């Protein structure tokens, strides 16, 4: 498993290929790879986005990402998983996140990558601040967070 928070711009495809080559080697049990990459758009909530600042909670974020990948590994019989997430200053078209899972069968890889992304959006402590023509704004969560047990 690989969990990484990157402060510098990164190439998600290169990171994937490196991990596959150097860690998974040529694991011939792998029949399916499912990958999701999120990138900064230049438009959000009807406003042009010039750039974006992403912050996280060091320690807690990594712990939660690791737990999410471990849950998916167990639930879907996944061979391995990877999450890399940017923080710092990002511009439109910059990669924000890559999630990848490897499994024997496609159903499991599809489900695992999707579950990890949904859990990440709902729980991983990251926060986006967008700069627009009208100054900056904290991004509102897109995922409904029904569970209000953790609210003060």
């Amino acid at each position, binding site marked *: 498993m690989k969990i990484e928070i990157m402060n510098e711009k990164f190439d998600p495809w290169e990171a994937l290929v490196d991990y596959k080559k150097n860690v998974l080697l040529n694991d011939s049990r792998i029949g399916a790879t499912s990958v999701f990459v*999120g990138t900064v758009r230049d438009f959000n909530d009807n406003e042009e986005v010039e750039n974006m600042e*992403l*912050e*996280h*909670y060091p*320690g*807690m974020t990594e*712990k939660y990402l690791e737990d999410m990948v471990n849950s998916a590994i167990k639930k879907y019989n996944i061979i391995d998983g990877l999450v890399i*997430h940017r923080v710092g200053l990002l511009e439109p078209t910059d990669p*924000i*996140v890559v999630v990848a899972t490897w499994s024997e069968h496609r159903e499991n890889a599809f489900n695992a990558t999707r579950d990890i*992304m949904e859990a*990440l*959006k*709902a*729980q*991983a*402590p*990251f*926060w*986006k*601040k967008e700069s627009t023509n009208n100054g900056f704004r*904290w*991004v*509102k*969560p*897109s995922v409904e*967070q029904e569970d*209000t*047990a*953790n*609210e*003060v």
Partner: protein
Amino acid sequence: MKIYVKYFASVRDMMGKDSEDLEIESSTSANELWKSLTVDKKTPVRVLVAVNHEYVDKNFNLKDGDEIAFFPPVTGG
């Protein structure tokens, strides 16, 4: 007892600082601490709380040495 408090994102902006070390009475709950820290402030509707890197219920009772964090709903990915 001593605790470490962290603020993130819009909550940090509101508090005007990113962290502080506090002496508080034992068995203060997360919610009681938040109320006492923001008694003179207009607070956002939704603030999440984590203790020692784990989401907790607002009634969670703090222990000596705990790290508690307050932050808005998350927006990663």
